[in-house]
């Protein structure tokens, strides 16, 4: 299994500002995933971040709003740009199991509240 940490664990931000969320993994992984969990709802995949290439975004998510960096095999950041109250969510990163590519390990999440 992989141990994943995220920073910050929670934050309260003003609308119009941006927040960068960090995800650190204790082992090298090629792929990392970012999810959003809006209040009372399920998880939705935002994008897949492959080290050394541009992230691949899911329908409804765009790079200008959610830029992602993947500088090395153990780290990634997700920025939530020009925030509005609708961006209030839990943001989670995950990595695939090195043995089984359809299984993922999840970080603890970042709880974001936008006022």
């Amino acid at each position, binding site marked *: 299994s992989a141990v994943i940490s995220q920073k910050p664990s929670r934050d309260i931000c003003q609308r119009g500002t941006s927040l960068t969320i960090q995800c650190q993994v204790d082992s090298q992984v090629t*792929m990392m995933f970012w999810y959003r969990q809006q209040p009372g*709802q399920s998880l939705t995949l935002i994008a*897949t971040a492959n080290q050394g290439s541009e992230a*691949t975004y899911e329908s409804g998510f765009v790079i200008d709003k959610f830029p992602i960096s993947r500088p090395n095999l153990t780290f990634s950041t997700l920025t939530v740009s020009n925030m509005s109250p609708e961006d209030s969510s839990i943001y*989670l990163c*995950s990595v695939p199991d090195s043995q089984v590519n*359809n*299984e993922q*390990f999840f970080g603890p999440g970042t709880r974001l509240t936008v006022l």
Partner: protein
Amino acid sequence: AQSVTQLDSHVSVSEGTPVLLRCNYSSSYSPSLFWYVQHPNKGLQLLLKYTSAATLVKGINGFEAEFKKSETSFHLTKPSAHMSDAAEYFCVVSDPRGSGGYNKLIFGAGTRLAVHP
């Protein structure tokens, strides 16, 4: 297309009674199915998974699920609920059309399990 439907948004049981959380899936492929649990203010934890081996899958903490292809179901059960089982449970199907050769995970809407003394 891959999708999952969790039939109950909330389930409430008494401690010591059985738990049943229902999940139906739709898949164009031979599916891989999972149940994840999310305790308040904690990360997601894998309970169990089905990947085309035995149809009755046993997981952690006494949970199990049965894959029924004829009913396209993957219901989660536990014989006797414990207070610590109170959490949000997600049924998940794997979509092989993910980026970079990795499967995407498609989450159900979730079922909140409450356990009363």
